[in-house]
């Protein structure tokens, strides 16, 4: 009868060798810079840098839902969809769109193409305007974009636009202001002092909470952050379309806030600053003139009452 002892011993030896090797490799793996397990995020471990690609896909998917499926593919002209419309409509993100948004399909190429268009979404509409039915009472259906935005922000927490779009629609159409604020604060946790996020947070305090001092503080912090971020950068980058748009928005909103608070001279100062980066300075100049008249009336009014 053959004894099993040598086999058991060999098995034990192999077991010890395996454990030793695993422990050795594990020590090296923990120190290895490419180790994604350090974050303990399963998505990070599985997808690594590819997460950003998926995040972009899901962000776009949200815009597809915003259009109820009427959206250009890689085979269509995407000029009018360069900037997601759901982001453009927030007013916080500069638009790079050009061309006709309703006609990316062009005229039908043949009878199959013409027939095919009956079976796909074939008309431009936005969910917040009622979608394909144009029924404004259904504008709350814009909520359908939220799952994709949530997934997108989970995959790429450094994408600012996702937080801004999510927060905007949560607070304006869902009535979930606190939830919107929470999203922005989460964004700020990953992207501290980001001026775009601060701008949107200021809007929450200004438009929803009507807390002018808090909104002013946040927007002023955003302006400081904008200048700090641009320090040392060449003018071409500093005054890029997106950066100028953000600064103009911040200054005009600060001006609006100061006007509401009755601080006309401060409002004029902000508008003057906005004018330097605005594509339509004449419009702002008109507002400045109006504010100057209001300021003059304000300064004259106490004098008249004392007399």
């Amino acid at each position, binding site marked *: 009868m053959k004894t099993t002892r040598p086999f058991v011993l060999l098995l034990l030896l192999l077991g010890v060798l395996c454990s030793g090797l695993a422990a050795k490799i594990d020590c090296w793996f923990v120190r290895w810079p490419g180790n994604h397990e350090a974050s303990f995020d399963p998505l990070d471990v599985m997808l690594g840098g590819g997460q950003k690609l998926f995040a972009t896909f899901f962000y776009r998917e949200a815009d597809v*839902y915003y259009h*109820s*499926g009427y959206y250009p*593919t890689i*085979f269509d002209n995407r000029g009018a969809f360069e900037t997601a419309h759901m982001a453009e409509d927030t007013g916080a993100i500069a638009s790079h769109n050009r061309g006709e948004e309703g006609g990316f399909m062009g005229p039908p*190429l*043949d009878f*199959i*193409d013409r*027939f*095919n268009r*009956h*079976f*796909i*979404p074939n008309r431009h509409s936005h969910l917040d305007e009622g*979608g*394909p*039915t144009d029924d404004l009472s259904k504008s*709350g*259906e814009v*909520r*359908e974009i*939220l*799952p*994709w935005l*949530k997934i997108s922000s989970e995959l790429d927490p450094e994408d600012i636009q996702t937080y801004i779009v999510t927060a905007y629609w*949560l607070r304006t159409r*869902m009535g*979930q202001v606190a*939830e919107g604020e929470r999203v922005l604060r989460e964004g700020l946790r990953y992207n501290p002092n980001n001026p775009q996020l601060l701008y949107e947070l200021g809007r929450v305090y200004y438009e929803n909470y009507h807390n002018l001092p808090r909104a002013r503080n946040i927007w002023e912090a955003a302006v400081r952050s904008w200048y700090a971020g641009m320090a040392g950068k060449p003018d071409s980058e500093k005054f890029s379309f997106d950066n100028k748009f953000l600064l103009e928005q911040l200054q005009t909103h600060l001006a609006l806030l100061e006007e509401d608070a009755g601080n006309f001279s401060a409002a004029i100062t902000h508008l003057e600053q906005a004018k330097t980066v605005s594509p339509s300075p004449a419009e702002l100049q008109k507002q400045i003139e109006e504010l100057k008249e209001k300021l003059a009336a304000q300064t004259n009014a106490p004098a008249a009452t004392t007399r």
Partner: protein
Amino acid sequence: MKKIFAIGNVVLLEMYRRKDFYVLFIVTALITAVMGSVTFFNNAQIVRYLKAISLFLIWASSLFIAIGATARQIPAERESRTIFPLMAKPVSRAQMLVGKFLGCWLACGLALVIFYVFFGCIVAAREHQWPLANYFQAWSLHWAMLGIVVAMTLFGSLVLTAVSSNLTITFIATVAILLVGRYLHKVALSMTEPSAAIFTGLYYVIPHLELFDVRDLIVQDWPPVPWGIWLIAIAYAAVYTGLLLLLSWLVFRKKVLR
């Protein structure tokens, strides 16, 4: 006709005994249930993502069932040599082919009914509505499309020697048509000859399966397709199915069975 239905009935019974459908249905139901249990921003009314996932799973499952079951029909009969007693009944090759097609297609239709009822229940639980016309159109167009796929697979099982190659090629061809079939002509316009002519020719020859994919209309709550258009699409599917069955018969008629 009796013989055709008899063969079709045997195929149907065989499909009923197979585990494919049950497994795919359970997987679809499980994934849909798990995804449905997720709540985004405390808003329980969000439903379209769930509809999209569920319909995608239904489409994928139906393609697996249709191609998987059909591809094995004739090769299995030949391998087990049951094709000879069947032919000796006497049953003509055309009757056998149509019987096999009918069995597979009906089985797909039944599976689709169960899938769509499940889908309707899941959506109704959240949306509290039953757009029956839309569901009927989606189901019927889907079923008509599967008719073309089943006929295509039958044809493949006569032309290609191995079941695995038929499965792979038919599956790839079906998915490719669904994904890019619509754009072939557009792509051809930006090409030079002879690729442009090849792509344009391909565009006009292939069965446009993507026509029958109205998932976007269902998910995004679009109104139903006009009934006249729906009828033309069904007729289009019938013509292609007929053509593919005719081609299959032409191949099968001359095939030497060993």
